[in-house]
Structure formats: structure tokens, C-alpha cells
């Protein structure tokens, strides 16, 4: 019996110490980040989170926030709409959260954006590409990446310029992959290409031979895949096994070392598009990538630069609000964010009336000797 | 419908498994109000006959006609077990099959399933008719539990698996009676009981007959068969080999041969 009393006492004391851990009060503002830290897209999500962390630490070190310390509150949406809404509620319940670095998946940002809107808190995404998100008319919602519409519209003429006419399209039946593939399908004929087929595969499936055999039979010039790196890698591998030497083109979901790892030698010569200018073009980008690698010991794969820019854009806007008003006023922040003119890792960012970036640039990369080499940068800017 | 019309009339009933004829062109009738015992060595097709009657197996051919109050005859062939039960044929199993984790009372209440009608909606809305019926079922079940002495009443809210062996046998019979069968098929009711229990049990079964149930009993215990049966039918190799009162059947050459083995007949 006595044993239990002692045990209980230990817990009581422990709990008391934990409660006392809260340090002295200082002026704190919180930046929220909701990205998938677990689930199928945990890898890019964690990269984004790390990039935001890097930005926050730099700002804190520079101490330019009018006496405020910046705290980062990271939440996990696990790429699941339900958890995204939960996480958004959790952040919005914390009155110190001034702005949010939002979501990787459109399926998460769509339902969660309503909650940011209700709370009047700016949410800015660096990776969601569904056009619908910014069309809801919420002034708090921004994004700095181009939409599926831009990437798809720019891909079709690029294929045409390569001298390839007959396109077979495959997509992975996800919001992202299929959305993009549909734009390419619709834009292709306008730039004079012929769409031979349009087929979906299941994520997680490994056997694409039956589908590829069918496509091979139609003799396309090029195979376009809308989807992520794992399936892209397997597809290109199995294409080569079946003796298909056609050009393989994919999207930013396949941009990253994972694609080359998964596809092996087959990826040589494959082309993928990535939103934004080539990172190595920009001095800032080089700088960022070096810092990231130093801090986290891994190389940037895909969306880190976007998250880093989002964090910097938000923090810049917050600091100028604090300069004007003395406090991080959320309402003023919306106006301030709208006026953004920022030169960052991914290039210049400014927003149109929907909150979409005006920087509508994508770059095509070719895999050469196991590395991505920029081939061409195209833009929709006037 | 005269008094001599059998309650159950089986005609040319056959059931085989692969090459084995478990029941082979059997004809038999069961008179209302009698206790008919089925005897025969192991594997002679007695239990299969019960399974065919109660709808568990579909016979290969033949018919099973049950006399019924509202219509002359119903052919039980092709009906599923619960339909057969609803028509008025209840049964027990050789190896007791109670709902072990349900209470004694609930076991009996399940037996009344086909004699009650309230559905899911009635239960959810607690309709008056459903509540009334539920009360009736509880009362009726308790009354049935008192049928064999009263030892089941005090334990009626304990799980059935907690009962001693003989009481489990009794409970299974009560569950079968709860469906108000006119014909009750009992598969070795006394198996596993000691002679003392068997004697008490025999009286219980006779009380059932007096209550108006017709009994068809598979039994190995000859003392029980003798003391209980109005009529005896002997089976061997799926065929009926003898029929009559106990003494008659016991003296039948073929029955003796079946029981003692045919070796000395051949060798």
C-alpha cells in the first residue's frame, strides 16, 4: 500500500515541476505551420517544416521584430483533410498565432482555409496547386506557387517545341496528379499535339506493365505522367524494360532525388517540370541550400525553398505591421501581405487580387548522369 | 382429418454423401402424441435423418409431410431450418448446442423467436406492442423453465455454460419447446447421464408427451428406450430394418445382427 502512496507522491511532485517550467513572460508572437509531418507525404512536409524553422531562427537571431520573440507552432495534417481542419482549429484557438505557413496538399488547404478565414488570420501556402483554393474569395488566403493550370498550360507547348506530337498521358488518380494531367490533356491539342490516351493508375500499385503494353501499342512519342516520384520512377523503369525508349515527362511531384533513386538508369533523359526559376540561378537559393544542408544534414529535395520563402514573406510583413502599429495586428497583416514585393529563394513574389503569385514561372529539368539539369525556363508573365 | 393420420409422414427419403447412402429410401410415420424411439448402431443414419427433417440437409429425394392444423399437409423438403421450426418441428442436438454465453432465460427466449414478431423498429421506438410482447416472452419463458422441476429457475440469469450437464440437456429441450413444436426431435437426450439421472429424465420426457408434444427420440440406452417408447424403429446402413413395440424390435433377427455385428453371420 505504501508503495502506491510513494508512487503517487512522485507523480505529484513531477507534475508540479512541469507546471512551473513555464518561463518568465516576454513578448512572443507565434507563427503557425501546418504541413504533413506524418502520413504519405511526410518527407516533403518535414522538409517544409525544417525550412520554416530555419527562417524563424534567422529572424530571432537578427532580432528585428520590434522586441518580439518569434515562436514556431508546427502542426501535423498528415495529408488528411480531417486532421487538417483539426490542426487549423488548434492553431486558431491560440490567439498568439499571427500567421500560418499552410499545407502541402490542396485537399487539406481547401477545408482548412475556411477556418483561417473565420479567424481572420493570414495563411500562405507554398505548395498547394488546386486553382479553386484562391477562388473562394477569402482575403486571408495566399500562395506563392503556381497552380496546376499554369504548369499544365506551359507543359503542353514545351512538349510541342521538343518536336514530340503524340502524347500518352498517365496520372495517379490523386487530386494533384490528375488535376495536372487534365490540364495537359486539354492544353495539348491547342498547341498541336495529339492526345492518344488518358489513363489513371492507383497509388501504391507496382505493376504498370499491362498499361504500358497498351500504350506501347499506340506508338506515342512521349509519355506524360502527372503524379509523384515513386510511381514515376517505377513507370519509367518498366517502360524501359518493355523496350519503350520514348521521352518521359513528369511534373514537380517527380522533381527530386527520390525519382532518380526509384527509377534508376531508366530516368536518364527524363524531363520533369518544377515551379519557379531554377534554384541554382539565384544566389539566395544557393545560400539557402547550403544553410539547410549544414543545419539538417540532408539536401533540399523539393518544397523547402517555398516554405522558406513563405515564412520570410510572412515575417517581413509582420515586422512592418509591428513597425507601424507596435503590435502584430492580424487585420493590418492581411493588407500588408497583399502589398508584398519580395525577392526570395524562388524569385520575385507579388500577389494578384486572388492572392495568387504573379510569378508564373516553371522550369523544365532533364535528368543527366543522375542529376537534374535545367533545360528551359518558361513563364506566363506578360 | 381423422385420428389415425400420422403427424409426420416420411416417404422414400434418401440422402447420400459422396458414395455413402446415409439415409436410404426410408418410409416412416409418426403418430400424434406418441414417443417414437429410433435405435441403431453408430453411423446408421439416425442423426442424418434428423438433420434432413429439420432442414439442415437437403434430401436427394423423397418427401417429409407434416400434418398441420390449418392445411392438410406441408412438405418440409426444401424449407430452411428456421422455417421447419416455425412449422412446428423442434429439435435438440447430440452434442449440446446451447448459446453458452447467454443466460439460461435468454436461451429460452431465443427459442420463442419464431413465436414472437416484434422487429427492429418496434424495439428502437419501444412501441407498446413490442413492450407487451417482450413481457409476454419473459413470463412465458420463466413458466417453461419451471417445466422440469424448479432447479432452473434460481439460475435463470446465469450463463448457460455454468449449468451442470443434465441441466444443460434439460435447458436445450426447453429451448426447443419454446418454439411450440408439435413434433420434437431429441438426439440422444440421455447420453452422458448416469442411471439415476436417466431415470429422472425419463419422467421428464413423459411429462412432455402428456403436455401434448409428439416425441421422436434417438437413443442408445436400451433401458431408456424400453421404459419410454410407445414404438421403436431400428436403423442400419441408412435403412429401416424393424419397426414395432420395443419387445418386438428387440427380438428381430436383423436388429440383433446389426448390434452384435454381422461377423459371426458371415464367418
Amino acid at each position, binding site marked *: 500500500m505504501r508503495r502506491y502512496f510513494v508512487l503517487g507522491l512522485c507523480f505529484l511532485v513531477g507534475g508540479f515541476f512541469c507546471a512551473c517550467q513555464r518561463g518568465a513572460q516576454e513578448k512572443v508572437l507565434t507563427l503557425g505551420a501546418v504541413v504533413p509531418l506524418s502520413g504519405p507525404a511526410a518527407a516533403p512536409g518535414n522538409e517544409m517544416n525544417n525550412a520554416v524553422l530555419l527562417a524563424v531562427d534567422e529572424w530571432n537571431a537578427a532580432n528585428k521584430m520590434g522586441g518580439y520573440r518569434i515562436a514556431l507552432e508546427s502542426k501535423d495534417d498528415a495529408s488528411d483533410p480531417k486532421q487538417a481542419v*483539426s490542426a487549423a482549429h488548434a492553431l486558431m484557438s491560440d490567439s498568439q498565432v499571427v500567421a500560418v505557413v499552410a499545407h502541402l496538399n490542396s485537399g487539406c488547404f481547401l477545408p482548412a482555409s475556411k477556418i483561417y478565414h473565420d479567424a481572420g488570420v493570414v495563411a500562405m501556402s507554398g505548395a498547394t496547386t488546386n486553382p479553386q483554393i484562391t477562388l473562394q474569395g477569402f482575403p486571408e488566403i495566399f500562395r506563392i506557387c503556381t497552380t496546376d493550370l499554369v504548369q499544365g498550360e506551359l507543359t503542353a507547348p514545351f512538349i510541342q517545341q521538343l518536336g514530340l506530337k503524340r502524347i500518352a498521358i498517365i496520372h495517379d488518380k490523386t487530386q494533384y496528379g490528375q488535376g495536372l494531367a487534365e490540364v495537359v490533356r486539354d492544353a495539348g491539342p491547342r498547341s498541336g499535339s495529339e492526345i492518344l490516351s488518358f489513363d489513371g493508375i492507383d497509388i501504391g500499385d507496382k505493376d504498370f506493365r499491362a498499361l504500358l503494353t497498351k500504350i506501347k501499342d499506340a506508338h506515342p512519342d512521349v509519355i506524360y505522367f502527372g503524379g509523384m516520384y515513386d510511381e514515376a520512377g517505377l513507370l519509367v523503369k518498366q517502360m524501359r524494360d518493355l523496350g519503350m525508349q520514348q521521352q518521359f515527362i513528369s511534373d514537380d511531384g517527380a522533381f527530386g532525388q527520390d525519382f532518380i533513386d526509384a527509377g534508376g538508369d531508366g530516368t536518364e533523359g527524363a524531363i520533369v517540370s518544377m515551379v519557379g526559376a531554377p534554384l541554382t540561378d539565384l544566389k539566395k537559393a544557393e545560400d539557402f541550400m547550403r544553410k539547410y544542408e549544414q543545419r539538417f544534414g540532408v539536401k533540399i529535395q523539393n518544397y523547402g525553398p517555398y516554405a522558406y520563402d513563405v515564412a520570410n514573406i510572412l515575417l517581413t510583413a509582420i515586422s512592418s505591421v509591428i513597425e507601424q502599429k507596435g503590435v502584430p495586428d492580424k487585420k493590418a497583416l492581411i493588407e500588408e501581405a497583399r502589398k508584398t514585393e519580395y525577392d526570395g529563394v524562388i524569385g520575385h513574389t507579388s500577389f494578384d487580387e486572388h492572392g495568387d503569385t504573379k510569378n508564373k514561372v516553371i522550369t523544365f529539368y532533364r535528368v543527366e548522369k543522375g542529376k537534374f539539369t535545367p533545360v528551359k525556363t518558361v513563364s506566363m508573365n506578360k | 382429418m381423422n385420428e389415425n393420420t400420422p403427424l409426420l409422414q416420411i416417404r422414400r427419403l434418401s440422402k447420400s454423401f459422396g458414395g455413402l447412402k446415409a439415409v436410404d429410401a426410408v418410409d416412416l410415420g409418426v403418430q400424434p402424441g406418441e414417443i417414437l424411439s429410433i435405435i441403431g448402431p453408430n453411423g446408421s443414419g439416425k442423426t442424418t435423418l434428423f438433420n434432413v427433417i429439420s432442414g439442415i440437409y437437403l434430401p436427394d429425394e423423397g418427401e417429409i409431410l407434416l400434418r398441420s392444423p390449418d392445411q392438410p399437409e406441408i412438405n418440409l423438403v426444401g424449407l430452411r431450418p428456421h422455417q421447419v421450426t416455425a412449422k412446428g418441428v423442434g429439435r435438440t442436438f447430440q452434442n449440446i448446442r446451447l448459446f453458452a*454465453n447467454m443466460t439460461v432465460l435468454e436461451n429460452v427466449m431465443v427459442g420463442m423467436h419464431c413465436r414472437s414478431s416484434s422487429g427492429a423498429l418496434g424495439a428502437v421506438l419501444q412501441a407498446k406492442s413490442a413492450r407487451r410482447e417482450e413481457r409476454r416472452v419473459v413470463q412465458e419463458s420463466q413458466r417453461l423453465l419451471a417445466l422440469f422441476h424448479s432447479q432452473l429457475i434460481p439460475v435463470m440469469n446465469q450463463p448457460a455454460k455454468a449449468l451442470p450437464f443434465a441441466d444443460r440437456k434439460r435447458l436445450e429441450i426447453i429451448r426447443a419447446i419454446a418454439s411450440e413444436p408439435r413434433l420434437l426431435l431429441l438426439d440422444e437426450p440421455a447420453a452422458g447421464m448416469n442411471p439415476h439421472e436417466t431415470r429422472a429424465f425419463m419422467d421428464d420426457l413423459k411429462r412432455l408427451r402428456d403436455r401434448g408434444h409428439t416425441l421422436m427420440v434417438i437413443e442408445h440406452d436400451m433401458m431408456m428406450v424400453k421404459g419410454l417408447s410407445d414404438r421403436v424403429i431400428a436403423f442400419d446402413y441408412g435403412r429401416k430394418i424393424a419397426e414395432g413395440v420395443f419387445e418386438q424390435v428387440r427380438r428381430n433377427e436383423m436388429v440383433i445382427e446389426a448390434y452384435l455385428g454381422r461377423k459371426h453371420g458371415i464367418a
Partner: protein
Amino acid sequence: MDVIYTILLVFCGFAIIVIGLSLQHVGPFLVFLAFVTAGAIFLSRLGWLRNFRQITNRNPRSLYFALALCIVAYPFIFTLLKSAYWIHVAAIAGIYACLALGLNITVGFAGLLDLGYVAFYAIGAYSSAIFFRHYPDARWMFWVILPAAALLAGIFGLLLGSPTLRLRGDYLAIVTLGFGQIVRIIATNWESVTNGPKGIADIPGPTIGRYSFETGIPVGSLVLPRVANYYFLIVLLALGIGVAANRLNHSRIGRAWIAIREDELAASCSGVNVTAIKLLAFAIGASFAGIAGVVYSSLIGFVDPMSFTFMESAMIVCMVVLGGMGSIPGVIVGAIVLAILPEKLREFEQIRMLLFGAALIAMMAFRPEGLIPSKRREQELLETTDE
């Protein structure tokens, strides 16, 4: 005196839950959790838990009264704590409670393992999403869709059940699993209706007359957040479903379910129409999931096929098993615990499913009856002798 004890006990439990939820960081929460668990073990060693139980059993009225009070107070407390989040989580937990109650009917009562249960949930969610996609302004129709979706899901339950219920239990498990996959594949591919993988967004909240679920609830000077509407709705629905399940459990139908679970052949020979009764279990379980699906789609405002994977089914199965198959309070507690714990323990998100798998095996080996086993038999004893 007992009445006061009961009410105090419930309030203490509620206070512990509220404190636990409002601890923001995982460290203090874990300490708190360990503390509470140690306390519970300590009390049970002293035999107090049994005393508590006896006291509350003697005063069901005051128990229910206190519980109701806590449930109503919950959103107010968290509004004062400025945390719409926990109200939202409670609403999600309520949805899971409905799902677990529904699955409990097929798995717990009738003993039919349904591994594709999420399909019916999806059918409910999609029927509301598809309707509002075409008629976004007919928001009051929510109240029509709710029962209609239950009916529709029930019909699908019958459709799936009728060819497969003659199968043995384990075949059934795999066929239902396949059915769950088929529903997801169809939702992904039938784009003209379901909008495919892009999902259906902007599903509006319901209205009652002038009152809209899109606005907060003003109570005096306090305004409860928007989610509180859903919280109250789902509490009412879960309550209704719980009561319905309880009444079914104690009815002729419920007894037949248990009977076929115990011994199908004997049940059949006792006059139970096995196929019909199994189908009924399937259909009723499915219709509960349909209701949960409709509320889910309005609460989240977005429906896509990826929300209805096998893991979601497995999660609901875990809730039922953890709580105790066949036990109504058990599965409700199971659902609430498994819905809230992941929110509290986000740090362990990665190993969540691993722990679920291990817990499932361990539960089956050591405590297959669940944390709060079905007290069916005891209760029945009291009730029937009273009458």
C-alpha cells in the same frame, strides 16, 4: 447522499478530462496521464472504483443528469478557454462514436467482422456532398439527407450482405474489405458524379429556419464558436444511436444476433431466420455509418476518396475492440479515447498505427472482452426480475 456523491464523482471525472485536454504540451500531458492512471490503479486497489460503480448504479438518474450537465458545459468551458479546437475534436470523437456504435452492431452483436465498414461512411458523406454540389443553397435539405443517407447506406448494406452472408465469417471479412476498396475506387473514378480524386469542397452547413450552422451560438455575452453547432448535433445523434443500439440489444432482434454469434446452426433450429437477422445487423450498422458520414461532410466541408481508406476501417474496428465488443458504453469510450489520444500525442503520430496493431493483438490475447466489457447479462438479470 448517494446522489451528491454520484454528481460529484462525475464532475471530478469531467474536471480531470478538461484539465488533461487543456494541457498544451505533450510533456506535462504525459506526466498528467501517468498521474491519473496511477491514481486510478491506486483507487481500484483500494476497492474504491467498485464502490463508485455501485453508487452510480444505484442512482442512474443522477448519473445521467450529471453527465448531461457536463456534456452541455463542455463547449462553454472551452469557449471560455478560447479553444474551439477541443470542441471540434469532440465533434469528431462523436462521429467516431456513431461509427463505432454502428460497427458494434455487426461485429459486437452479430459477430460478423466487417472490414469495409468505412464504405458506408463514405456513402453517407458522398450522398450529402453530391447533393450540395448541385443544390448548394438548399441547406435545410440536410435534415432530409440525414435519414435518406441512412436509408441509402442501409440499402447498400443489404446489397453487400445478401450475396455474402451465407459465407463463413472469415470469407465475409475479406469480401467486406474488398467492398470497401471497391467503393473507394468508384469514388475515385466516377468523376462525373463524385468529382474523382479532387473531391467535393464547399459542402455547406445545415440551417434550421433562419438559424444557420455557419454562425456561432450567442449565449448571453458569450458566443460559442461555429463548431459548437456540430458538437450539439453530433451529441444528440450519438445519444440517439446509442439508445437505439441499447434497445436493440435488449430486444428479440438483439437476442437473435447474440444467438447466431454463439451458434448459428442452433439459432437456425431455434427458429431464427439467420440470413434475415444478419442482413438486419448489416443494414442497421451501415445506416448508422451513413448518418455519421453526412455529419462529417458538413463538419469538414470537404469529401475526397482518400478519407475512406482501409486504415479508417481498421481504426473503427480498433475502437470497438478496445472498448469491448458488444458493450455500448465500451465502444463509445473506445471511440472517444482513440479519437482524442492522437490529437494529444501528435508527437507519436508516426508510431500510432504500429501501437494500434500491437494493441489489437494484445487485446485479443489477454483481454478479448475489451476495457469495458459488456455487462449485458448482469443488467438483464436486474431488469427481468423487476418486472
